[in-house]
């Protein structure tokens, strides 16, 4: 990295190198059996430099001669935007625990038996089900250095269990599944098994449903899959800067139910989304986005913040190109109503566990519409079965303006969002 900076220094005013080195070992299961073991090594290097006041960018995966990388970035700098911020030069960070050496010591055979034990338990519960999924362990090192003298690095471990079951009966396909992820080894498979069996039990029979408006319970999975994408877009400093966020003039104003609290929190120990610094070397920090229903702030990277006259909130993220604003780990604060009590209070309603196609609507506007891939009908306070061939449509701002109940059942979904179930007064259901 120093070599790249040295070469860049000869032609550019300033430069910054970001490198991720990772190794990941997923163990894959298919049709209830172990199918494949993989080992994936990768190194990716990204260079930003400022030449004649303009930003150039190049990146490489795999080995590349440092001079080539610098030349590529110099070439693009002719077209780059006017550099409006300085690469951080002072880099010291609060410690956040994201590395557990135990992860690297979990043997392949332990990972295999972990996966097989979930599959065996699910198969014992439901005959004919076919499970697939993976158990994965990995280590990634993030390094960042700039010509201003700043240098930081962080090593992070990850362990995840992801398993799906597919049950075909009478030309009808049912999908169930769970995913859990942590910076520490997940050695107890029972929460995953329990979740999959819970979904199977609720979906044993199909229940009829009619078109109309009715109360809706989003489970943690359902909420993460349908309501989050519009919110993530609306709080993105770039969407706000472009005037395309419905929240652009709502800072400090009540927009959501007063019980709604949404925080981006990269400081929680051993969560996969946690980190001491973002992908630009800015300290990552806990940012409240919604406080008691009020819009608190938006999230920024360095470039967007400079354009907006704001400061980076430590949300610079690299998803394959130049940094852009992105959240680390969202936490919606839980309430005190159990999911069972939510259901008990409904005369007629729908529970949404998985919505398919929700992200295909006009996310900018908060709209979503999708097919209920897994969801249940509620009648007189009881779940009567799985709904099928059913679509729901709604708008996040209308749904979360006034909610009926916030659940006490918060959980992490894939390590990047923690949310309870939320019960909302009305959603539009279209059924065959």
């Amino acid at each position, binding site marked *: 990295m120093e070599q790249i900076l040295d070469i860049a220094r000869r032609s550019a005013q300033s430069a910054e190198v970001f490198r991720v080195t990772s190794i990941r070992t997923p163990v894959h299961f298919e049709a209830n059996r172990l199918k494949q073991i993989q080992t994936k090594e990768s190194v990716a290097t990204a260079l930003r430099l400022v030449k004649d006041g303009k930003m*150039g960018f*190049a990146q490489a995966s*795999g080995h590349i001669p440092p001079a080539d990388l610098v030349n*590529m970035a110099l070439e693009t700098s002719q077209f780059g935007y006017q550099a409006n911020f300085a690469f951080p030069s002072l880099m010291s960070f609060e410690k956040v625990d994201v590395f557990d050496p135990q992860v690297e010591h979990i043997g392949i055979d332990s990972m295999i038996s972990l996966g097989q034990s979930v599959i065996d338990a699910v198969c014992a519960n439901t005959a004919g089900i076919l499970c697939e999924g993976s158990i994965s362990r990995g280590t990634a090192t993030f390094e960042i250095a700039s010509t201003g003298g700043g240098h930081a690095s962080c090593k992070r471990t990850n362990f995840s269990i992801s398993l799906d079951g597919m049950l075909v009966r009478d030309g009808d396909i049912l999908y169930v599944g769970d995913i859990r992820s942590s910076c520490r080894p997940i050695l107890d498979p029972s929460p995953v098994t329990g979740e999959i069996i819970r979904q199977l039990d609720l979906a044993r029979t199909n229940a009829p449903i009619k078109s109309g408006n009715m109360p809706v319970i989003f489970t943690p999975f359902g909420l993460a899959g349908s309501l989050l994408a519009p919110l993530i877009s609306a709080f993105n400093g770039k969407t706000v800067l472009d005037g*395309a966020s419905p929240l652009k003039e709502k800072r400090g104003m009540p927009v959501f139910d007063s019980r709604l609290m949404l925080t981006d929190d990269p400081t929680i120990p051993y969560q996969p989304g946690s980190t001491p610094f973002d992908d630009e070397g800015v300290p990552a920090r806990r940012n409240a986005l919604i406080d008691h229903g009020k819009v608190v702030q938006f999230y920024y990277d360095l470039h967007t913040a400079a354009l907006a006259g704001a400061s980076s909130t430590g949300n610079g993220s690299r998803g394959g190109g130049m940094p852009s604003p992105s959240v680390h780990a969202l936490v919606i604060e839980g309430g005190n109503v159990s999911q069972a009590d939510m259901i008990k209070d409904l005369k007629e309603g729908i529970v949404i566990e998985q919505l398919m196609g929700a992200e295909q*609507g006009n996310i900018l*506007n908060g709209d979503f*519409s999708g097919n209920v891939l897994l969801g249940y009908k509620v009648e007189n306070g009881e779940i009567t079965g799985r709904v099928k061939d059913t679509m729901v449509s709604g708008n996040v701002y209308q749904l979360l303006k006034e909610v009926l109940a916030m659940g006490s059942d918060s959980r992490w979904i894939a390590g990047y969002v923690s949310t309870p179930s939320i019960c909302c007064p009305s959603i539009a259901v279209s059924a065959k």
Partner: protein
Amino acid sequence: MQDRLFSVIRGLKADYIEVRLDESQSSRLAYRGERLEEAGRTASTGGCVRALIKGGWGFASFNSIDRLAESAATAVEQASHVGKGRSEFSPSRAVIDKIEAEYKKNPVEVPLSAKKSILDEYNSIMLGTPGIQTTSVGYADIKKKVIFANSDGSYIEQSRIDLNLRLSAIASRDGDVQQVGLSIGSKGDFSTVEGLQERVGGIARRAVALLSAPEFKGGTFTVVLDPVLAGVFVHEAFGHLSEADHIYENPQMRDIMVLGRSFGGQHLNIVDGAAVPGLRGSYSYDDEGTPASKTYLIKEGVLNSRLHSRETAAKMGEKPTGNARAINFNFPPIVRMTNTYIEPGATTFNDMISGIKEGVYARDWYGGTTSLEMFTFSAGEAYMIRDGKVAEMIRPVVLSGNVFTTLHNIDAIGDDLDMNQGGGCGKASQSPLPVSNGSPHIRIQNCLVGGK
């Protein structure tokens, strides 16, 4: 290189082993509103080894060719750890071949400044349209060379050039935000992204018009899809279900997907094939060294064939179709679509809509996804059909269906096949894979449309 790869392969013991080396260069330009947000270049090198032993697979990927021998040993060791049964893998003839990239107008040779000036023009057309709040523009091209060698004795070098342009016009008024997009892709012809001024102006005007369009109340309707959206429909509604890796180890799915089963009317023919030339999903060999083919998935309404890798074909006693594809060296090949389309029929567009009292005309695409049985696909543009005529514009709709009924409900197939090359396909974290899909206009009875 050929000798080096063969010597690594010959030095190891496995039922099957393959090595793939990737080398690619890409350039990207991205705008948000007036701002050029990214002008960047990327170079990538890497490779992988995959080994099959007693039915178990090992796979190791690496960034540096220096790691080849070690990764190959790892893949073999992993495969032998997994393998407990018998390997089933369709045999293939050894092929030695070299395929150069096809291009009409090579995007890699177009200077970045020329690309930028075209995007600048499109962006200013959109931003100059009254009512447009902002835009998003993304362009990328990639030149890629893949070297493949396997234990059959095949050695294949394939190069390709792919490009993609995505434009969105975003209109806003009184807190309401609407957007319309355009996505264009091509296998090595930069001229496909030139001369789009008319269409770019059109998406901007439509985004503004959407602010005044009424919301749609959901329900079941007679729906007419344009060739672009019908292409997304056939990809989601049937293409994914045709991928044999969803079927081959699932006895119930094998019963459901038995060849000869009726899925639609006699007028329905669905094709997939990388051997269909000149499209984004076209290639000569797949990532297991199988030559590309053209496969009739549905012929005259009846399930005729499916998409295979060498493993799924062997396990189902069918022939490989050349559909095993990997997005890059970090992934093993899996069964994927290539160019998927509904063959044209004889109905004109006017005849198709003339009998519809109240229906929906859905055009263009925004997205699509499937669970195999149920699928959703969303229109970029939608109108009511009233008394046999296209009537007022409505807010874009999401449509949904069930594969076992919806294909039967197609009761008219148009005469105007068109291929959409702007999409990419995602499966098992490998996204977006270049594919194309298409169809003529089609009419579907009793289709579920979401709405408030």
